């Protein structure tokens, strides 16, 4: 956003400190607008005044303008599955954070038979991978018109739409695109793509059906010309595809184009190119080689541009060796570096434990906690899990850094009154905290058992070590 200090926002606010926005002062609200944890429209008094007074309205509009993201935000899809892309502010995540994770769209094509289409769609819809307290899922579909038959494309688009996920419709032939839009425009798909050859028709389609549109051009002058033209024609939801070339100089050139597009938008404030960028890792399937080579290279291209400015991607492979690493990378890169990821400390009951069940210990680093909780839950282990406040640091680092200590363990034992809930005094600590064994025993009087290094192995460990031999 254009503004750099809360004061610049503050000057636009009513300055009454009425607290309606949920913040104590207008200044506090202003600083949250600045880091994008609050929205201008949350200041209700300002909005209400604007409805009555055109002068205030003007002020409000100005404020919205100067606090809007550097890169336009584009919404694909409708309802609660709709996905936002773009909306970025910075070139490096430590300068603030990256906001809208790269959207992953998976390939379905209309010359595939219906049963295969169903299989692919179901795999995408049902995909999940547990990570840091929630399941990572896939965002949507890219429906390609390989038949060049408007009727078939429409039919398949409709079928895929029934899965309720956001879609990219892919056809360079405007007739095919129009045919599909007649059926699914209300799902607000992203249409791909306007090119130097068909931009007029696509401009009309985007306007008529009110859908976001992707522009595809390798020459950045052309890309910018089309987007400037679309912008002036009143199209707001534009996505830029500077053409992903999968190999050699081509890929190097793609890297350059992507970096330059984003730098141009953010450093030079060029609004003609301040739109989300679309990358097509699917292009990797054009290279020579076997399926694993292609899939690996698809993951490589995706990885490159998850780190560098890809806001949406089209994938062909739905194999785990492509999906899992890229999905995890996306999560990592888009994690907000300003806030430590931690959970509340305390006692967590696993699978309705009884007094004879084991007591485990872990830290409140979200990654650690959720990994452990899920490992134990899915192994159907009954037990009591003590979560120590290590200020969001994992086991090994918190032992090394003095955030997990015997006295902290003593505290949590007392606070949670765990001794009253179980009929034994055995505490299972993580293998990586083994060196605290003696100290904890001395401090708490509990007998400490050193568990495995990885919580995924507690089940096997239990078979040998629980109940403890006296």
């Amino acid at each position, binding site marked *: 956003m254009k503004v750099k200090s809360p004061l610049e926002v503050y000057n636009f606010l009513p300055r009454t400190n009425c607290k309606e926005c949920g913040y104590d002062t207008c200044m506090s609200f202003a600083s949250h607008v600045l880091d994008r944890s609050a929205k201008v429209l949350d200041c209700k008094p300002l909005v209400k005044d604007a409805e009555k007074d055109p002068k205030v309205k003007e002020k409000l509009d100005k404020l919205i303008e100067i606090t809007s993201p550097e890169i336009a935000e584009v919404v694909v899809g409708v309802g609660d599955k709709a996905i936002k892309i773009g909306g970025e502010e910075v070139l490096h995540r430590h300068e603030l954070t990256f906001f809208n994770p790269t959207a992953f769209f998976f390939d379905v094509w209309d010359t595939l038979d219906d049963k295969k289409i169903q299989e692919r769609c179901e795999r995408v819809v049902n995909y999940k991978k*547990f990570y840091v307290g929630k399941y990572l899922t896939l965002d949507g579909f890219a429906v390609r018109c390989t038949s060049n038959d408007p009727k078939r494309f429409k039919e398949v688009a409709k079928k895929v739409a029934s899965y309720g996920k956001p879609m990219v419709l892919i056809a360079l032939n405007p007739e095919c695109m129009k045919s599909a839009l007649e059926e699914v425009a209300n799902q607000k798909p992203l249409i791909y793509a306007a090119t130097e050859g068909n931009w007029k028709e696509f401009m009309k389609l985007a306007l008529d059906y009110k859908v976001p549109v992707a522009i595809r051009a390798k020459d950045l*002058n*052309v890309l910018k010309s089309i987007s400037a033209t679309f912008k*002036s024609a*009143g199209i707001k939801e534009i996505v830029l595809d500077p053409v992903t070339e999968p190999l050699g100089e081509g890929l*190097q050139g793609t890297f350059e184009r992507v970096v330059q597009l984003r730098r141009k938008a953010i450093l030079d404030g060029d609004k003609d190119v301040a739109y989300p960028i679309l990358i097509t890792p699917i292009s990797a399937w*054009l290279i020579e080689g076997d399926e694993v080579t292609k899939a690996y290279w698809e993951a490589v291209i995706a990885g490159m541009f998850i780190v560098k400015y890809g806001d949406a991607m089209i994938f062909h492979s739905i194999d785990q060796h492509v999906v*899992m690493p890229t999905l995890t990378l996306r999560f990592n890169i888009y994690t907000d570096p300003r806030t430590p990821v931690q959970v509340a400390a305390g006692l967590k009951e696993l699978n309705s434990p009884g007094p004879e069940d084991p007591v485990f210990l872990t830290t409140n680093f979200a990654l650690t906690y959720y990994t452990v909780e899920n490992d134990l839950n899915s192994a159907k282990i009954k037990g009591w899990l003590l979560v120590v406040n290590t200020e969001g640091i994992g086991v090994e680092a918190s032992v090394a850094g003095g955030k997990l200590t015997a006295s902290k363990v003593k505290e949590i034992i007392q606070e949670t009154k765990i001794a009253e809930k179980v009929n034994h005094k055995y505490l299972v600590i993580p293998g990586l905290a083994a060196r605290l064994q003696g100290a904890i025993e001395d401090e708490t009087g509990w007998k400490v058992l050193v568990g495995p290094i990885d919580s*995924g192995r507690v089940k096997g460990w239990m078979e040998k070590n629980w109940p403890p031999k006296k």
Partner: protein
Amino acid sequence: MANKYTLEDFLKLLKEYNVERLEDVKIEGDLEIELEGSAVDLSSITALYSLLSEFRNFFYHTSMALNYLQRISTMFGVPAPLQAPQVQAVAPAVAPAPVAVVPEIKLPEKLIEAKFESPKIEYPGVIEEVVLGATKADGGTRDYVVKLGGEKSLAFYIFDKPQPNLPAIAIDVFDRPPSLAKAVKVHYEDVVGSPAEWAKKCVKKFGADMVTIHLVSTDPLLENTPASEAVKVIEDVLQAVKCPIIIGGCGNKDKDPEVLEKAAEVCEGERVMLASATLDMDWARICEAAKKYGHVVLSWTQMDINNQKTLNRYLLKRAGMPRNSIVMDPTTAALGYGLDYAFTNMERIRISGLKGDTDLNFPISSGTTNAWGARESWMTDSPLEGDTPWGPRELRGPIWEIITGLTLSLAGVDVFMMMHPLAVAVLKEIFNTLGGKVKGGVADAGKWITAEV
């Protein structure tokens, strides 16, 4: 019937709908806009109003207004006839039945010709260039040297400044059988137990630029091999391969300085990298040995830019290390296990160095083998029932190492210590590609749009 709709009427309409600031609009000439149709869809008026207020800043001159009208009619989809007489029908309740007549939409016929001027960024700083290995000419026995660093721009931004040295890859070799993921172990089974053979395989078969020999057996908690004994292995390795080498200790802060000191001695003239000096050990002793025998020191901190700065300063100012003899390891965390911390820490370090912080402008090293610590890389399948099955781990493991390395290469890493041969090969390909060393590409990058895969 076709109604003549003049700009005056248009402005009147705008006034009626309370659009401000139009006083400023200059009307030149007598433009007329023709519209067809006989009814106004009242529901479109609200939309019109909000659109107008959003766009009012753009009303600079009449042609803009003209353009704008056309745009509005397009935006309303097909039946959005705007017609002067009906517009005064402010009573919203009685909307006359709209007659679907397609208006003539005039969209731009030509592209606005825009030029994209690529931005160029110049940094004041430069990353030190550090040479590993020494050939005969320089008093060593290596066949070639490996140069690290020398960048004047972010990694692979060769459009800003050429990148003098692409990242190098060193494969890990251990002096005792390490515990390794199965997918990695299978590639080294035949050479475990013979570091010299192991090193040879890394270079000859897997294309390593260098090898790192980790003297893990010196660990007091393991074999506790004495320093003088342990370093014999290095002599074997130096015989077996002619690439520059890196020597790693066991990580014990009391033992490592002694071991690395001894290693420095037996490697005199070979310009090896001693890994590592850390804040909590006798770094001065390691540096003394490095200076005496002409080696490079790896300055290792745990993901903390300030600690990295502190340790580098110690090495420079207190231990008097030459600037061309320091490489940094700011610590690598695997994909999914802290990679975000590692990436951002390295990226910040690199940017600081380029911006002119002379405590941080050294080449960066990454222990990418850490990727194999991530359960996703080595477990046969997910321990969680809810997960979609993880697929064959033989395929998951290497890509975990690749993506970890790739990500950190974009943060600025100059030398990777890694293990899986496939990961080594793929990362090499990536570096050569982004470094502009791979010619060609595919003939038609748009083919996927219609290809049946």
